[in-house]
C-alpha cells in the first residue's frame, strides 16, 4: 500500500498524510455507530425497541442526530476550573486513543504504520489517555471528577501489567513486536492461530490451555483499560455520577465518549491480532477468495466487532466491581496467573 501510494503521489509527505485518513474516518464512524450499537443491543437485551424514530425503524440516523445536537450545545467552562487544562483534556484523551490505532493491522496491505515495536508502542501510547483523564478530572474542579480520574489512573496503570504479561506470551512465541508479523505468523488457518498454540508441531498442544487463559486475561484486562463494565468505575453512574467527564458539555463530552468507544475497538484489535489470527481468514489459503487483502479487512473488522459486541453484552449483564475488588482481581488473580502462563510458555520455548 505504501508503495502504491508513493507511486501515485510521488511524495513521501503526501503519502504520510493520506495513510491515516481512512483510519481516522473509521474511528469516527465506528465510534458514532458503536453508540447506536450499544443502544440497540441493550434494547434487544431488555425487551424494548431502542431508538427507532431518527432514520426509520432501525434508528440508523440516531448518531448523526446526536452529533448535530451536540454541535449546537454550549461549551461550558465551570467556574474556578483550570481553563487551559480543562480545554486540553478531551483532546489528550482522544489523541491517545487515536494514536493507538496507528499500529492496528487492518489488512496485509493496510496498517497505519508497521512499527517494529508496534505492541510496545500501543501500550505506551494508550497510556497517554490516562494523563488526559487525570487532567480532565483535576481541572474540572469537581470532587466527583477528581475521584473519577484518581480511579482511572489507579485502574489503568494496574491493568497495564496483566495486559503486558498476557501479551508477552505471544511475543515470546512469535519473537517479534510488530503487529503485521503477528498476523503473518498465524497464516494457514484456524489451527495456526496463537490461541491454539500458533504454527508448530504437535507438541504445541500443551501450550493451548495456557494460551487460552492468557487470551482471557488479555481480554479482561483490556476491558478494564477501556473502562467498560464491570470495570467502569471511572464513570460509575450510581457512585460518582459520570466521573471524569462530569463537567464537560457538548462536543468535549463527545471526545471522551469517542475515546471510550474507539478504545473498545482498539483493545479488541489487540486481542484479535495477538490471539485470533488478526486479519487471517480462519480457512487459511484453502479458500483463496476469502483471503484476499480486501477480505482481510472484513475478517479483521468482523473479529473486532465480535469482541465489541461481547463488551456491550457484558456491560448490560454484569454489575460493577468495587475499587478494592478491582485491584484485588488485578494483583491477586490476573497477575499471578499471567505469570504462570509466561513461565509455562518460556519453559516450552527453552526445552
Amino acid at each position: 500500500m505504501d508503495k502504491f501510494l508513493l507511486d501515485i503521489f510521488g511524495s513521501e509527505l503526501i503519502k504520510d498524510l493520506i495513510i491515516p485518513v481512512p483510519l481516522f474516518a473509521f474511528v469516527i464512524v465506528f465510534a458514532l455507530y458503536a453508540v447506536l450499537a450499544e443502544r440497540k443491543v441493550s434494547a434487544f437485551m431488555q425487551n424494548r425497541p431502542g431508538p427507532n424514530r431518527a432514520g426509520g425503524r432501525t434508528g440508523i440516523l440516531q448518531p448523526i442526530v446526536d452529533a448535530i445536537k451536540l454541535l449546537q450545545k454550549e461549551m461550558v467552562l465551570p467556574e474556578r476550573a483550570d481553563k487551559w487544562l480543562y480545554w486540553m483534556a478531551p483532546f489528550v484523551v482522544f489523541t491517545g486513543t487515536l494514536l493507538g490505532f496507528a499500529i492496528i493491522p487492518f489488512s496485509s496491505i493496510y496498517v497505519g504504520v508497521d512499527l517494529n515495536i508496534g505492541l510496545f508502542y500501543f501500550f505506551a501510547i494508550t497510556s497517554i489517555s490516562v494523563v488526559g483523564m487525570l487532567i480532565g478530572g483535576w481541572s474540572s474542579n469537581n470532587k466527583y471528577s477528581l475521584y473519577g480520574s484518581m480511579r482511572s489512573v489507579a485502574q489503568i496503570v494496574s491493568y497495564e501489567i496483566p495486559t503486558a504479561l498476557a501479551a508477552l506470551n505471544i511475543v515470546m512465541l512469535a519473537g517479534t513486536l510488530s503487529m503485521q508479523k503477528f498476523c503473518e505468523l498465524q497464516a494457514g488457518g484456524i489451527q495456526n492461530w496463537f490461541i491454539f498454540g500458533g504454527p508448530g508441531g504437535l507438541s504445541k498442544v500443551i501450550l493451548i490451555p495456557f494460551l487460552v487463559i492468557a487470551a482471557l486475561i488479555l481480554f479482561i484486562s483490556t476491558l478494564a483499560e477501556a473502562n467498560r463494565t464491570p470495570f467502569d468505575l471511572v464513570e460509575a453512574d450510581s457512585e460518582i455520577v459520570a466521573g471524569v467527564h462530569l463537567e464537560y458539555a457538548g462536543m468535549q463530552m463527545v471526545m471522551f465518549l469517542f475515546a471510550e468507544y474507539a478504545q473498545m475497538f482498539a483493545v479488541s484489535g489487540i486481542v484479535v491480532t495477538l490471539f485470533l489470527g488478526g486479519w487471517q481468514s480462519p480457512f487459511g489459503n484453502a479458500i483463496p477468495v476469502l483471503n484476499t487483502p480486501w477480505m482481510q479487512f472484513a475478517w479483521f473488522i468482523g473479529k473486532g466487532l465480535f469482541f465489541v459486541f461481547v463488551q456491550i453484552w457484558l456491560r448490560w449483564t454484569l454489575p460493577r466491581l468495587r475499587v478494592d475488588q478491582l485491584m484485588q482481581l488485578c494483583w491477586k488473580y490476573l497477575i499471578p496467573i499471567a505469570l504462570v502462563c509466561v513461565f509455562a510458555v518460556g519453559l516450552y520455548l527453552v526445552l
Partner: protein
Amino acid sequence: MAEIRTEDMVLNMGPQHPSTHGVLRLQLTLEGEIVIDVKPYIGYLHRCFEKHTEAMTYPQVIPYADRMDYVNAMSNELSYVIAVEKLMGIEVPERVEYIRVIMSELQRLASHLLAIGTYGNDAGAFTPFLYCMATRERVLELFEITCGARLLYNYFWVGGLSHDIPVNFQKKVKEFVEFFKPKVSELNNLLSFNKIFIERTANIGILPADYAINAGAAGPVLRGSGIKFDLRKNDPYSIYPKFDFDIPVGQGLKGTVGDNWDRYMVRIHEMEESIKIIEQAIDNIPEGDVQSQIPKRVKPPVGEVYARTETPKGELGYYIISDGSLNPYRVKARSPSFCNLSLIRALSKGYMIADVVMTLGSLDIVLGCIDR
C-alpha cells in the same frame, strides 16, 4: 521532613444524584475512598402532609396518604383506614377485607420489584431494573382495571372500598400469579446469585439485631438482621391470621447475618410469600357489598389511636388524635423509611463510597415517606 498536612474530603451526594433514590442529601466525609462519616440531610420533599391532614376531613386525607410512600400507595391507605376504623369502631365486611389483603399483597410485589430493580441499578446492572419494571407493569395493570389509576389509587375508603373489583379480576390475578412465579427464579439467576453482586453486597453494611431494635428498624431491614417479626403475624390486623405464610429472615447465607445481601434476599422471599397469600385469598373472596359500612359522615369520637400495619418497607403507623370534629386534630405518620434511613450513619462508617450506595439501596427508602 516536614509533616504533610492532610484534610478529609467532604463530598456532597445529592440532593440530585442518580442513586440517592430521590432528593436525599448525604454529606460524606471521606479519606480516599473510605467513608469516615455520613450525615444525611432530609426534607427536600417535605410536603407538609401533617399540616394538610389538619385542614382536611378524614376521607380527604386518604389521597395525601397515597402520596406519602408513592410506590406502595395501597399499603399506606390500608394503614390509615384501619386507624380511622379502629377509632370509629367500624367492622368492615369480609369481602372488603379479602380485597384489601389481595391489593396490599399485590402492592408489596410492585414495591419490592422496584426496590430490587433500583438496587441492581445501584450495583451498576441496569438490565435487572428494566426486567423488574416490566414485571411491575403487569401488577399496575391489575390496579388499573380495578380503580383506574396506576400509581395513586384512593381505593380503600373508611369502612369499605371506592368500588368493587371488576368482573374478570380473579381470572386476571390468577393469570398474573402464573406469570409471576418463574420471574423470581429469573431474577435470582440474573442478579441475586451473580458472583459480582454477592461480592458487592455480602458482608457490607452489617446491622446487628439488638441495634436494629434499638434504632427502630422495620420491615425487611429488621428481618434481614434475623429477627422474625412481621406485624401480619405478631400483631395481626385485617384477616391475615387466616392465611398460611412464612416470615423470611436473613440467615447470612453469603456473609454475615444482617448484611446487604440478606436484606435484599428477604425481599425476594417476601415476594414468594405474597404470591402464596394471593393464591389463598383469590378463590375465597366472599360475596357482599363493599360499600355497606361506609359512614355518611366520618366523624370519630374524641380519642386517639395508633394503628400500625406491615407495609413493604416496614411498620407504618398512624397516630391520630380526634377532637370530635370532621377534621383530625393531629395525624402523625410513623414512616418505616424514616427510621430505616436513620441507620445509614451507623451502617456505612468504615466502608467505601460504593458501599454507601449499596447500603442505601438495601434500606429501600422512599423520600416521600421520609419527608412527608
